[in-house]
């Protein structure tokens, strides 16, 4: 009986150890840095951690020595000392010296980290609830501009497609439009936000910077190898906070030039004639896309909203009321609620999404909203 029990324990420990070996492939440390600055930060973390471990082992070595040798059950009698000036001065001064030794390399790294001057390319990253917008402001590719939203299918998240989730190596860390940058160039990222605070965080590139509405912050990185680096929003920004990833694709200079050219061609092709007369059906089709990217997270694809939290659009007074009021609401948002201003969308996008909401679900106004009426109310 007893023997069996022991065997059981040995088995348990062995299986635990084998699974520890299996874990070795999982990260126990910071992600491998892909920038020189990141390497410095990585080393700094290693040094601080090693110093902490040494002191920890030393201090608790004393404590455990006392626990085992100075116990009453082995007959140890208590000494009655309760101070020792020399020792007390020593253990105040020695940590002080160690901390100064730590602060010196930390200072150098911090100053490098905060030097955003002489950037080759400047990109503005704007946090929205819940996606990122990117505007290439300076350097090769200036004037490129796009939004970047999560591309993981909803079914994988909600559990309707668990197999798909398990087969997806980039679950929740993939976007429809990646941020593309050339290798070996200093990229300055300006961060800001349209609604609440977000944070632009890519661990392998060692950057994290809050995106504060109404203010511009900056950070930078210079990737050493081409590759795809994944991160996500790091500051709680509402219900979809866990679902606004950042994917940075670092390319060779030639590939980057080609990417810039393709983006510019795409931009020209996508440019819509502002005077084009859209039909209701065209607006609805376009509007459904815009709705999916901007509105469905709260108001739901069914237009039913979430009772108590996000109002239903189906049968809504605003959506079925005068169009001017709905346009005004979309342009200005509603203070004190999660309904933000959507004036960053184009006239056509707004016209189409409003048309879509006014002619979907239980709403049948039959109205097609023209982009001119959006322009007039801006």
């Amino acid at each position, binding site marked *: 009986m007893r023997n069996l029990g022991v065997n059981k324990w040995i088995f348990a420990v062995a299986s635990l150890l084998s699974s520890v070996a299996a874990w070795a492939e999982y990260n126990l440390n910071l992600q491998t840095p892909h920038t020189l600055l990141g390497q410095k930060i990585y080393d700094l973390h290693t040094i601080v951690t090693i110093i902490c471990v040494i002191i920890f082992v030393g*201090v608790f070595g*004393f404590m455990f020595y006392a626990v085992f040798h100075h116990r009453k059950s082995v007959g140890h009698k208590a000494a009655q000392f309760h101070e020792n000036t020399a020792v007390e001065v020593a253990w105040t001064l020695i940590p002080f010296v160690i901390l100064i030794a730590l602060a010196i390399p*930390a200072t150098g790294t911090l100053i490098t980290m905060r030097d955003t001057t002489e950037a080759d390319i400047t990109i503005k990253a704007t946090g929205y609830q819940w996606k990122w917008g990117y505007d290439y402001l300076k350097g090769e590719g200036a004037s490129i501009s796009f939004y970047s939203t999560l591309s993981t299918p909803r079914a994988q998240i909600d559990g309707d497609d668990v197999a798909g989730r398990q087969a997806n190596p980039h679950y929740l860390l993939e976007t429809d439009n990646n941020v593309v940058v050339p290798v070996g160039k200093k990229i300055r990222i300006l961060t800001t936000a349209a609604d609440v605070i977000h944070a632009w965080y890519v661990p392998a590139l060692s950057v994290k910077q809050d995106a504060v509405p109404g203010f511009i912050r900056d950070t930078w990185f210079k990737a050493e190898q081409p590759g795809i680096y994944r991160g996500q929003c790091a500051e709680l920004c509402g219900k979809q906070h866990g679902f606004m990833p950042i994917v940075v694709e670092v390319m060779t200079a030639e590939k980057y030039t080609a990417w810039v050219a393709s983006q510019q061609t795409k931009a020209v092709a996508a440019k819509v004639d502002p005077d084009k007369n859209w039909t209701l059906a065209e607006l609805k089709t376009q509007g459904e896309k815009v709705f999916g990217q901007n509105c469905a997270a709260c108001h739901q694809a069914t237009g039913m909203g979430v009772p108590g939290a996000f109002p239903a659009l189906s049968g809504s007074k605003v959506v079925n009321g005068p169009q001017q009021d709905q346009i005004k609401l979309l342009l200005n948002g509603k203070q004190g609620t999660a309904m933000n201003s959507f004036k960053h969308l184009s006239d056509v996008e707004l016209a189409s999404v409003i048309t879509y909401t006014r002619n979907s679900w239980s709403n049948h106004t039959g109205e097609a909203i023209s982009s001119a009426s959006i322009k007039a109310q801006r």
Partner: protein
Amino acid sequence: MEAVNTHADHGHHDRGHDDHDHKPTGLKRWLMSTNHKDIGTMYLWFSFFMFIVGGIMALVIRSELFQPGLQIVKPEFFNSMTTYHGLIMVFGAIMPAFVGFANWLIPMQIGAADMAFPRMNNLSFWLLPPAAFLLIGAQFAPGGGAGVGWTLYAPLSTQAGPAMDLTIFAIHILGMSSIMGSINIITTLLNMRAPGMALMKMPMFCWTWLITAYLLVAVMPVLAGAVTMTLTDRHFGTHFFNAAGGGDPVLYQHIFWFFGHPEVYIIAIPAFGVVSQVIPAFSRKPLFGYASMVYATASIAILSFMVWAHHMYTAGMPVQAQLYFMYATVLIAVPTGVKVFNWVATMWRGSLTFETPMLFAIGFLFLFTLGGFTGLVLSITPVDVQLHDTYYVVAHFHYVMVAGALFSAFAGIYFWLPKWTGRMYDEKLGRIHFWLSLVFFNLTFFVQHFLGLAGMPRRIPDYALQFAEFNAISSVGAFGFGFSQLLFLYIVIKTITSGEKAPDRPWEGADSLEWTHLPSPAPFHSFVEPPVIK
């Protein structure tokens, strides 16, 4: 053993003839209580109740995070759980627990009859249930609880539903309660010490509470100001935190953390005090470096006002400010180190025994120091920028809040339970409670360091697949830890109802007045006339 005879404890010797020991009965005894012991008891039960409520919320969080994907709750409810788990544990569980200790122990340890303002003491306590009602009730407001994080950052908090207003009022009420409690503690400690009880003779627990009470009086109004500004931004058209109207969202963070960092020590310092009573008692040796302990605690408190922006390294500030806050923050390691060294030196060459209070105190010492070291890692700005808002931070503050403050509270409860109830707890069950808590705590939180290092942000309801294993382990640990606390409840109830009778001084090395001068259980009215301290 009978209490040492002084003229103070006649209430004990001829209890039958003495109306000092007259107790009110029924509901009135508790509702109208002005007795520091009854109020202390109510604080402790209240905090245990909130600990369970906050714990259930933690288990909702850990259930959702057991596997990738959204299984159990919606993201907005998940956010509400993280928010109220934090608020309830900090303001409803840990802080009231230590105020409960303060109420029970301060008058007994300094030889006073009661707290300085007994009626205000009653009010301080009875403000808590309405605040708890608001915090819990916020879950049922239209739109659910405010999913804004316990830090209530603007402008997310300006955007939240009506639950946010309930939360703000709860914080106002909790703040009033804390301030009144602190005024009471400061006044009691400064004015009501028995003759001969010089400040530098007070037990360490009293010192830590004197310092904590000053911190509370200084920073609770700051928090009240921050949430009031949020309230007026929400409803009265002000723009303190709205850039479009000339305000600044980051201003909120500065104000919040000017409260928030001292708050960390408001929780930690009384925990230091409890441990400083327990370790010498079971080492049978006086506390090493009493004076340096007092100075170190005071230095920590003063430094805690000067480091707030280390919570905001990624919010954006000049590099000079980041350097200053980094230097000031690493400095805190010096007095904290002194305290740890002092505790170890107290144990050194003592005559140690390992009853449950001592086990929890050693657990505290070991794991709190671990949390302190991850704090040092986080204080280095470039490293913090990597780890800020990741699970590394979550692991760090749970080491100092749970293994630190909560373990210290457990140590204190097992230590003083014989004095409070007159009965001994079940030593064997107490030890099981300790080992279960220790193992499951580490299972829950140690792996979170790895999650944070690998880049998992906090406050997300779903995560990338590379985080799956450690999250599963952490969730298993959390359930184990949660259920272990039911054993604690059982132990306490068993002690009260059927514990063996406790001697007046069950711990050989315990030497403060409640042990040397008072019987177990401590009479309803103690030290009606002050003892004489040699």
